[in-house]
């Protein structure tokens, strides 16, 4: 993964809302409850935004002191999903 990689959900992985408050990411071996950072990051995974764009979109919503943490959370979250074959990367 580089900052120019464009993440998108792998086939057979989809987001489903379970109630007004809760959405889950359904994947072949289970589900991921989308709360907090996970929900915010995944909402920006649309098959056109790059990792850099997702990171900066999120950073704009928070004060500068949180920016470094946001960048590292985006990276670790997306890498984790990629390692489970839930997320694919294409290069911009």
């Amino acid at each position, binding site marked *: 993964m580089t900052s120019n990689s464009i993440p998108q959900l*792998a*086939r*057979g*992985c*989809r987001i*489903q809302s379970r109630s007004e408050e809760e959405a*889950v990411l*359904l*994947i*072949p*071996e*289970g*589900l991921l409850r989308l709360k907090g950072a996970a929900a915010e990051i995944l909402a920006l995974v649309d098959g056109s935004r790059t990792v850099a764009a997702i990171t900066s979109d999120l950073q704009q919503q928070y004060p500068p002191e949180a920016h470094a943490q946001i960048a590292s959370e985006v990276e670790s979250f997306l890498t984790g999903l*990629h*390692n*489970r*074959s839930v997320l694919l990367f294409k290069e911009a």
Partner: protein
Amino acid sequence: MSTETNTQPLSLVCEVTHRCPLHCVYCSNPLVMQSPQEEIDTATWTRVFQEAADLGIVHLHLTGGEPLARTDLAELVAAGRDAGLYINMITSALGLTEQRLQALVDAGLDHIQLSLQDADEAMANQWAGARAHAKKLEMAKLIKAQPNLAFTVNIVVHRQNLDRLEEMIALAESMGPERIEIAHVQYYGWALKNRDALLPTREQVVHSLQVLEAAQKRLSGRIHLQAVVPDYYAKYPKACVGGWAQQLLLIDPAGRVLPCHSAGIIPGMVFETVLNRDLGWIWRESSAFNRFRGEDWMQEPCRSCDRKEVDFGGCRCQAMQIVGDADATDPACSLSPHHRDLVHIAESALSRPSDMVYRILGAVSQDSISSLE
């Protein structure tokens, strides 16, 4: 014994038929299978899927037998999706065609798991008891081309094929899945009959772990490779079905609801059917689901063990089969006083040549026998 539960099941496994074109030597379905006449109909399954969704279940696993043996399979997939479930089908691909695959995908199939018996065609057909291998490879190409369907290849391993693990992983990789699952044979049902011929040696298992580790590194970021180690050689038992009546329900072709698919071997079990009862009631109230729910039933060494919430005492059916007591600690656990019995079984299984018995629907004994060693 508790009659109330706060747990919420996540998975529903539906054996929609016991009919199967394969006759696998390692089939873990019960010895006595249900006939096509006993199978519950489309409308009943449709109601059950809604009851499952109401219970909070997320994943529906359509299996068998071979689920494709049911002509209403696409209707069942659509009914599951309508209920809001994630639909997985576990198949041999026998009975699949391009049209049928498309119909299943159009109905909302999310994930397909295709089994692979060996890297070598003649051997693969021998373990399956059918000429299935070439058809699987052909169907894999169609599955791979589906843009919205997740694809997993399941490799079933045992003593007769474990030495070809590297070749099997390479073949599975070429089929284009996102996931490869290596599953050691589980010795229940029919597979128990063939245990002496199928149980791998300790050396094979140790070597296979090295092969797995190398493959995991090589495939990292492309294919997620996961493996289930054989519990006869494990230090601690598997957390069977995620704990009895904690995560999963299984419905057999006639609509009987079980906490796991071999629970019928435990004496005194009474299974409710979806024809008479709501799935939620069965989950919460039925005697079968409450029999080993929680910790009250546990004996020592489980009762005072700090792993009791990790592996839940292991597998009740294995305790029944090996120890003769369904409440005992799973003998796969090195802390079990009966662990040496399991070790003895493994050692003696390897010391004598044995024949394999092929599974045929309806036949429980005197099947065709083929000598392998």
